[in-house]
């Protein structure tokens, strides 16, 4: 039963409408109206003040595709030990690469150094001629297998592709040596994949380089036909494996170390494919200097990259982010299995960039993303 009852009339409205004689009362701006106007003016002033201080220039401007949790401490160390000031713009590697490209096209480059989680974004800028040549001393700090053949970018930390598995549901003895085995009937419905994720696409590109397009296309089609579970990114796969939603998943190695650090009870572990298998690709996080006529900017940028490749920089990545240090002689964290970089050599990293479009076509043609 719904019944209508009167509710008290709002007094303020009555003031305005109690009859034509009362209109004069509403003609005078109320103190409240004036206060609103004053607030608006004050805020506008605040905003323009904030805008004006946006343009101060630091010695090194970094566009970082790696988020601040995983790099800011080492950049603070750099400021403290060199006295150079650093400003950082964080974002996803691909978006920042687009922004650098637009800045360069307009002749208004702001970035001095680009740190990219994805070789694809470095390749995109290198192809468009937006990167500067790195000094030989910087290139000499790492193995040639983890830097650009053209000398325009250098890797400073590495992520290995692995198969993460649920330790309650899977016997490690049953796990394959090759990623090609995952198309077998015994893995039907058990594999988690993130086909739209950059690191999966980098891995497929590497497979095209070593195995050829035909074999890669066959593998992708076989994987898709094997009823895989599709996720948005590595993290989602590791979480899903941890809660048993899917038994195994193709991911980067460090996600599981971080998941375990967050939740030590999570029943998940990494399995490495054979060292020469495309499934165990090493993806590097790379650093590059943006092309400029200013020699000082290039020198400052090189100084920053050298710092990332110094022992303290490399050990930060090894122990804090569980990644592989790439400078000669630097060991990984104690519970991360060491790998021999000469084994991962031979993949032409610059092809990861140039061929990404074709990779995307192959992935789509295999029925993913559909």
């Amino acid at each position: 039963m719904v019944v209508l009852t009167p509710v008290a009339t709002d007094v303020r409205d009555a003031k305005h409408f109690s009859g034509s004689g009362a209109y004069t009362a509403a003609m005078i701006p109320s103190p409240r109206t004036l206060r609103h106007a004053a607030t608006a003016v004050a805020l506008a002033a605040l905003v323009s003040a904030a805008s004006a201080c946006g343009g101060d220039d630091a010695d090194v401007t970094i566009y970082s595709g790696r988020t601040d949790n995983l790099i800011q401490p080492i950049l603070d160390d750099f400021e403290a030990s060199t006295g150079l000031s650093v400003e950082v713009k964080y974002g996803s590697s691909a978006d920042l690469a687009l922004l650098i490209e637009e800045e360069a096209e307009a002749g208004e480059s702001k970035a001095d150094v680009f740190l990219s989680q994805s070789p694809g974004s470095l390749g995109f800028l290198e192809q468009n001629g937006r990167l500067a040549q790195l000094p030989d001393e910087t290139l000499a700090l790492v193995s040639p297998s983890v830097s650009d053949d053209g000398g325009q970018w250098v890797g400073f930390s590495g992520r290995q592709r692995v198969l993460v598995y649920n330790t309650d549901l899977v016997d490690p003895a049953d796990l394959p040596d090759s990623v090609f085995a995952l198309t077998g009937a015994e893995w039907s419905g058990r594999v988690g994949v993130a086909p739209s994720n950059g690191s999966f696409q980098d891995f497929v590109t590497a497979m095209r380089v070593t195995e050829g397009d035909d074999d890669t296309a066959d593998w992708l089609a076989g994987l898709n036909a094997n009823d895989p579970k599709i996720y948005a990114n590595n993290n989602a796969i590791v979480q899903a494996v941890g809660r048993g939603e899917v038994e195994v998943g193709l991911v980067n190695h460090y996600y599981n170390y971080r998941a375990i650090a967050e939740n030590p009870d999570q029943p998940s572990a990494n399995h490495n494919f054979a060292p020469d298998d495309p499934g165990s690709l090493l993806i590097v996080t790379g650093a590059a200097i943006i092309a400029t006529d200013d020699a000082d900017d290039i020198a400052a940028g090189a100084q920053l990259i050298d710092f990332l490749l110094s022992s303290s920089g490399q050990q930060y990545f090894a122990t804090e982010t569980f990644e592989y240090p790439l400078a000669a002689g630097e060991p990984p964290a104690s519970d991360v299995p060491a790998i021999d970089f000469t084994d991962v050599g031979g993949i032409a990293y610059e092809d990861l960039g140039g061929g990404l479009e074709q990779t995307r076509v192959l992935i789509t043609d295999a029925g993913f993303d559909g």
Partner: protein
Amino acid sequence: MTDAALAPISRPPAPAARGHATPAATSWITPTRVLGLVIGALFAGPAGFVAWRTIRLGGDLGSALAEVPAPLWRTVQLSSLVSISTAVLGTGLAWLTTRTDLPGRRLWRVALVLPLVLPSFVGAAAFISGLAPGGVVHDSLDALGISPPDRFRGLGAAWLVLTAFTYPYVYLPVAARLLGLRSHLEESGRLLGLSSMSTFIKVTLPQLRSAILGGGLLVFLYTLSEFGAVQLLGYDTLTRVIFSSRQTNRALSFAAATVVLILALCVVALERSQRGAARPDDRAASMNRRAAQLGWAKIPALGVCGLTVVVGLIVPVTSLATWARRGLSDGRIGFGQLVEPAASTALVAVSAAIVATTVVLPIALATTRRPHRSSDVAAVSVVVGFAIPGLVLALALAVLTLNTPALERLYQTTGLLIIAYVIHFGSQALASSESAARAVPNGLRESSRLLEPSPIRRFFTVDFPLMRPGLLAGGGLVLLSTVKELPATLLLAPPDFSTLSTEIWAAYEEGFYAEAGLASIVLIAVSAVLTWFLVLRRSDVVRR
């Protein structure tokens, strides 16, 4: 409605009044319309850039269309479903909390706005984690003897999450409209023997039509440009095409963005043709408010409100709190590092809300007072800004400022960031402002014209007080949307400038759930405090 219809019925033959009216009668050019067109042109900048870039890159719309029919169809399906469900839910909740004796109305009015504050990708992630074994939903369902779903993916999941987080786009304007509506027609309906349900459908609903359509349109456009949540939930829409090809095939990426814009234009045009004549109320608003007695219906009514808050707020917040607690308990994270991002967030959000509400006001006045095609064009250009995915909008503004010497100084300043928010979310202020403008009775405006010759003083003394609830609701929507905006913020913010949503993104991206959870909870708190002090406390939505 023509200008003639709006002319005062008994205009006195005073020379001043006639002099004021004559130019408007002979020419479409009025100051408000011209101002509206200029503002509309500014809003159209990014969309124009997208079209120009598509052509310049040789993006062949035909081949893009050949590649996008499946994601296009999925986008249309999801956007339509979410719009319909939010229209029903938002309208029902607005009626319950403004027109009935529902217990705890004031509390519900605040709680029911809050689901809007969660960035939808955070909401989606929290849902996924809540439905996982050990998660809050999974265990609650288990305790109730219901078997929890194995997977939370696809159209159904995306529909549920987006409905739960976007219905306030309908709820807020409809509640504001209900509070501004006279109830005399409803009372007449009741006296003539209509049941309360018939009264609502036959009398109240038609008067809410423009508010519901406007809110539903916002939801449609939001869903159209949404990326984070639908990607996490495994539902591929047009935005995925834009994102996945943004570097590898820029022609396709921009062509897909153009398809999104064309779709948005069609929907906006459809909405404007369906909203009916914009007829301001003839008499004063808000007199003799009467509340419907719900009686036994209070129980299901409370159930609906409760379930909405549980799904849109309690479930995600509980999941986020679970993440945050793990990090807080072992001292890995704290609130200290979030103070600066929280302050930055509040600054840009409040600024964007004020600027957006102010700049769309001339357009709202032009479209409702003296409708003309030129004002409609300006309004459409404001509304379409909401459909441009944040990343595309940010790139457009970056390119426009970088290549315009006079604007180059704006690049990577908070000023440009605020401009981006205003273009992206101005439509939300516009929808509410148009409703607000209709709340000013014609008779009152005509009478005031006799007494106060200055239109500006008239606006502040007569129009503004009556429009205030609607303007505050619009500003509140812009504020809440800005607080959680991510892609444009990441790209356009100055270096070393972080907001709560960029902190959440950074932590979530690298799997630091504890930080992401804590930052999300701070974001909800900041939104709630700002909304309370700046919007709700001052608006009639809570006062009555």
